[in-house]
C-alpha cells in the first residue's frame, strides 16, 4: 500500500462527515431497498411462522423443511433466479424491472422471507401452548390473542427481524446481478464496496464499511438492552 491506512481512514471519515453526495446516495439506496423488502415481507412471514407453529396440517413438515433449506441458498442463486424471471425474454420481462430498485426489492424479499418465517416459527414454538389455549377459551378474540403473544415474544421476534434485515443489507450477489450497480439508482453499500475495491480506491469502500460496522454495533446494543429488559431480574 502506498497510502498509509491512517490516511485512508481519515479520507473515509471525511467522506462521511462532509456528506459526500455519492456516498450518501449509496447508503440511501441500501436502506430504502432493504427496508422496503423487509416491510413487505414482515407481516406475511410472521403470520406463516405462526401458522406453522400452532396448527397441524398435512405437509407442514415439508413446508418447514423447505423453508429451512431456502434459508441456506446462496444469494447469488436467488439473484440468478430473479434475473432469469426479469430478463427481456423472461416470464416477467414485460415488467421492465431488471436493473431497477423494484427488481432488487423482489430479490431481497425472497432472501429475507425464509429467515423471518423460520425464526418466527421457532419463537412461536417456544411458547407454552396452554397460555394460548387459555386466552382463547376465555373468549379473547383471535387478533388480540395473537397481539398479546407477539408482545410476549417481542425479543425473539425482533431478533428474527434484525437477522433478516442484516442478511439483506449485506448481501452482494443478488443486488449486483439484479440491480446492476447503477450509480444513484441501484448501487448499494455492498456492491459499491466490491466496485471500489476492484478499482483500487479504498477510501469510499472503507467509509461504507464503517457505516455497516456502526449499524451492527447499534443493532447489537439495542438487542442486548432488550434482552436485559426481557429477563426477570434475580435478587
Amino acid at each position: 500500500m502506498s497510502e498509509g491506512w491512517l490516511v485512508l481512514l481519515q479520507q473515509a471519515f471525511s467522506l462521511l462527515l462532509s456528506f459526500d453526495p455519492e456516498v450518501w446516495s449509496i447508503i440511501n439506496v441500501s436502506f430504502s431497498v432493504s427496508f422496503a423488502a423487509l416491510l413487505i415481507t414482515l407481516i406475511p412471514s410472521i403470520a406463516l411462522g405462526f401458522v406453522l407453529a400452532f396448527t397441524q396440517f398435512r405437509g407442514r413438515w415439508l413446508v418447514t423443511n423447505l423453508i429451512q433449506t431456502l434459508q441456506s441458498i446462496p444469494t447469488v442463486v436467488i439473484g440468478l433466479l430473479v434475473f432469469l424471471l426479469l430478463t427481456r425474454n423472461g416470464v416477467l420481462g414485460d415488467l421492465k424491472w431488471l436493473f431497477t430498485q423494484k427488481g432488487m426489492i423482489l430479490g431481497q424479499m425472497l432472501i429475507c422471507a425464509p429467515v423471518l418465517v423460520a425464526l418466527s416459527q421457532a419463537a412461536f414454538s417456544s411458547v407454552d401452548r396452554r397460555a394460548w389455549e387459555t386466552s382463547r377459551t376465555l373468549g379473547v378474540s383471535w387478533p388480540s390473542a395473537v397481539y398479546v403473544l407477539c408482545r410476549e415474544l417481542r425479543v425473539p421476534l425482533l431478533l428474527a427481524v434484525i437477522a433478516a434485515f442484516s442478511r439483506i443489507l449485506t448481501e452482494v450477489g443478488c443486488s449486483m446481478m439484479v440491480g446492476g450497480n447503477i450509480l444513484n439508482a441501484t448501487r448499494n453499500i455492498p456492491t459499491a464496496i466490491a466496485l471500489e475495491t476492484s478499482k483500487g480506491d479504498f477510501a469510499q469502500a472503507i467509509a461504507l464499511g464503517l457505516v455497516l460496522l456502526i449499524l451492527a454495533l447499534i443493532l447489537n446494543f439495542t438487542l442486548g438492552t432488550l434482552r436485559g429488559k426481557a429477563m426477570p431480574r434475580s435478587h
Partner: protein
Amino acid sequence: MFTKKSSALLLAASVLGSVAFSPVALADEIIKLATTTSTENSGLLGAILPTFEKQSGFEVQVIATGTGKALKLARQGDVDVVMTHAPAAEAKFVNEGYGIEPRGIMANDFVVLGPKNDPAKINGSKDVNQAFAKIAAKPATFISRGDNSGTNMKELAIWNNANVTTDFNGYTAVGQGMGKTLLMANELQAYTLTDRGTFVAYKAKLDLEIKFDGGEALANPYQIILINPKKYPDLNHKGARALSDWLVSPEAKKMINNYKVQGEQLFKASQK
C-alpha cells in the same frame, strides 16, 4: 473443432496436469503482468504467451483488471510489468517516474453500439463527438462502465471533446466489466462504447449493432511499460524486459496479427 464439452474436459485435464506435474517455478522465473480485462477476455494472451514462456523459460502470471487498477498495482510495485490502453494515464505514470520505456505493441479500435432501430439516429454521424452529442440530445439511454477502465477513460474523453456533461437523463454508470456492461446495454436496449474485441466475443448474445465506428478518435493503442528499477529494485526487471522485447519481435507481431476470434482479426500489431 472440439465440441464444448471435450474442450472443457481437455482444459480441466491440462490444468490438473500442470498443477500436478509442473515443478514449482522459482521466484525470479515468474513475471507478474498487470493488464486489462480486454486482452485477457479476448483470449489473445492465452494464445501467444505460451510461446514466449517456452522460449525464455519465464512463467508469466497475468493479473487482469481495469487499466486504472493495473497502473495502480504497477505504481505500488506489486507487479513486474504493465500492459494497458489509456494513453493519458500511461503518460502520467511515465512522467511521474514510475514507468520507463513505454512501447506501443498493438491497437484495436472502439465502436459505439446501439439498438437496431437507432433511436438517436447516430448512424452516419461525421465523427464520434457528433454521435455522442446526438445520444445526449435525444436523450437516449447510454451505459457507461464507470469503473476507471481504459474504455471508461476513453468514453469520458469523448464526452469532454463533444462538450457534453454526463448528467443527461439516460446516462447510466454501472461499474462493471466490459462483458457485463454489454449484457446490460442489451437488456436496456441502450447505447454503449466497447472495444471491438469484446463485442465480437459477445456478438451472438446481443441484440445490438455497431452504429458508429472508425476515425482516429476511436483508436485504442496498447502499450507495455517497464517499472522503474530505481523505485523498486527487487522486482523481476530481467523478465519484464525479456517480455517487452519479445512482444515487439517480428514473431510476436505475426502471432498478434493472426489471432482471430470468430473469423475476425482483433488486434493490429504496431508497425514500429
